[in-house]
């Protein structure tokens, strides 16, 4: 027991002394390892960050796996009656117990900012949309189910919008006067029948976003639009046909378990088709990033991984090269140690340890350098290209992988010299 402890401590001490005595050689050989580990960790971390950013972006635009979209159109080119479509939609959701589903309506609303009225893009959705698209909030919170019951529409605005409002405290329930449809002849944003909406949350804006935009609940938008249309004297029952600027179409979207998505696609399409009757065609399709197989980032991963392994291989070759040359120079020293009682196992372990201790130190340095590189604002700009607002933190996997790679490279690079060291003929080594 004490023998094992003193053996281990002794080997580490020996390795440390060796490193100290040959510090120049060690430093030179380790520069290669540190650079290799740094490149590996950087490449892997950047790969992971780009992948995560891409995935987040994809999920925000086209939903999480599996997202099914429902659309319906009439063969005569006219729009399918929205109320009927909504009824069919609700019925389908209830029948298959789909709780994550949302209508998505793209529209515009006139908002009277201090600088004048601006037509602001509105994305009107149902409450589950926030979860389905992982909408991130910089302030406040996503719509709650209770928000749908409110008479005053709830708004979630982007940072640009929020800035133009003067960034009021959300706890004070700041309001915005929505001008309703852009009515011909209305001078200011405040058209007749304008509604006071309450801002409950703020979403971060990507750096390329310069225009204000906002989320509303679909039910509240539809109510607002039909009220405005009524005030404006429009007679049509189609809420989208009434106002000139508010034109938009309803998309229907469901987030379902990927394993049943194919089955569900067929069933929902059949049901909706049957409910709409002849003359209309229903189409259900999948649109999330994962629709084309298991991993759309597989190619990226393979390329990045391949480069990283090549880089590490080069570093390892350099290390083995230097380690072999130096062990040849140390044959005499190993012979001396053997003659003073170092067992073959001890010599093997000490030479190996030397390599491992050194590469772990170099690896740690490489990982730290990689973290500094990846987290630098310059790299953020380069990788994010303005589309990633919330940069993911440095992937822990990448750091661990870097250290692990350094250890493995150290052990492998130490293996060959350690085998050479064990085969040293003691007296020949000492007497040459």
């Amino acid at each position, binding site marked *: 027991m004490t023998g094992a402890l*003193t053996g281990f401590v002794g080997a580490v001490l020996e390795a440390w*002394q060796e490193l100290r005595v040959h510090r120049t050689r060690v430093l030179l050989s380790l520069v290669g390892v540190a650079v290799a580990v740094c490149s590996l960790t950087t490449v892997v971390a950047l790969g992971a960050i780009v992948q995560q950013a891409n995935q987040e972006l994809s999920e925000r635009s086209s939903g999480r796996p599996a997202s099914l979209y429902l659309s319906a159109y009439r063969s005569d080119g006219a729009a399918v009656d929205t109320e009927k479509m909504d009824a069919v939609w609700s019925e389908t959701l209830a029948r298959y117990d789909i709780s994550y589903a949302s209508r998505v309506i793209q529209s515009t609303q006139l908002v009277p900012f201090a600088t004048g009225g601006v037509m602001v893009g509105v994305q009107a959705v149902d409450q589950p949309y926030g979860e389905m698209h992982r909408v991130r909030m910089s302030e406040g919170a996503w719509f709650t189910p209770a928000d749908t019951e409110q008479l005053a529409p709830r708004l979630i605005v982007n940072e640009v919008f929020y800035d133009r409002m003067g960034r009021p405290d959300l706890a004070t329930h700041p309001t915005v006067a929505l001008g309703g449809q852009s009515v011909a002849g209305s001078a200011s944003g405040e058209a007749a029948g304008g509604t006071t909406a309450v801002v409950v949350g703020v979403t971060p804006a990507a750096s390329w976003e310069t225009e204000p935009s906002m989320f509303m609940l679909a039910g509240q938008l539809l109510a607002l639009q039909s009220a405005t249309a009524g005030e404006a004297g429009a007679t049509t029952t189609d809420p989208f046909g009434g106002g000139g600027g508010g034109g938009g179409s309803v998309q229907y979207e469901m987030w379902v378990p990927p394993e049943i998505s194919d089955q569900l696609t067929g069933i929902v399409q059949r049901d909706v088709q049957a409910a709409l009757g002849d003359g209309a065609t229903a189409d259900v399709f999948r649109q999330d990033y994962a629709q084309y197989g298991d991993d759309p980032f597989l190619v990226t991963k393979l390329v990045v991984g391949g480069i990283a392994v090549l880089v590490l291989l080069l570093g390892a070759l350099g290390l083995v090269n230097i380690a072999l040359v130096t062990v040849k120079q140390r044959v005499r020293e190993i012979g001396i140690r053997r003659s003073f*009682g170092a067992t073959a196992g001890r010599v093997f372990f000490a030479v190996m340890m030397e390599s491992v201790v050194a590469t772990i130190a170099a690896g740690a340095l490489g990982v730290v350098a990689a973290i500094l590189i990846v987290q630098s604002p310059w790299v953020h700009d380069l990788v994010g290209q303005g589309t990633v607002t919330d940069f993911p933190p440095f992937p822990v996997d990448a750091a661990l992988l870097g250290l692990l790679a350094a250890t493995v490279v150290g052990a492998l690079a130490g293996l060959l010299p350690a085998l050479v060291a064990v085969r040293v003929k003691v007296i020949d080594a000492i*007497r040459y």
Partner: protein
Amino acid sequence: MHGPARRQLGVRRAGADVVSLLQLQDVTRTVLPPDQPALTILSGVDLTVEPGDRISIVGRSGSGKSTLLNILGLLDLPTSGTLTFADRPVKSYSGGERDRVRGARIGFVFQQFNLLPGRTALENVAMPLLYATGRQFWRRRSLAAEMLEAVGLGHRLESLPDRLSGGEQQRVAIARSLVRGPSLILADEPTGALDLDTGQSVMELIDEVATRTGAALVTITHDPAIARRARDHFRLDRGVLTPVADPALSVSGVES
């Protein structure tokens, strides 16, 4: 055939019932060079080393000194014959056990000193203690310092080998060979790299510490003056070990 001769030399301690430290009986060592017939390096070597012995072995280069030293130091095994250390056949030791016994019981002194470069005198002397266990391991620095004091280098603890004279380096090497308290000191041409006076004083030091610790001393040399300091003399010629009365005669005999 050399056995009885050795026995006669051993007679002076007859009845003391001492355990033999190292015993070689009819030891042969052959090597097999590729595509060539076997080459005999040592043949029929008999040698008994008992505690406190002073033995000198004189031989020219190529006579098998290295191989004999390897076998005496448990660094190599005989091809045939028996080798026992502390009355136990060395064949029955595992490789690791042989290394540990060597570290604990045998101290080497080399012609080229063979200090580890870049390490201080203290670190060099402490080196064998890295392979010890328990108290010797944990107190290696103070033990090494004491040993350097004992060889008169208490003031050079932190000196690197290349800052020491040849005599000082050999004294560090002697301190290193003795630091674990060995029962056998193997000195391989210990004065070969030193001038005459320094060589004499180094040999006196080795004799003195060997006497003080009761260790056996086996000196391999080509210098009759050094060999004469031993009590028992042997000549190694073409792998055959013969006891001789006067090492000077043996050398001239070899050279003739």
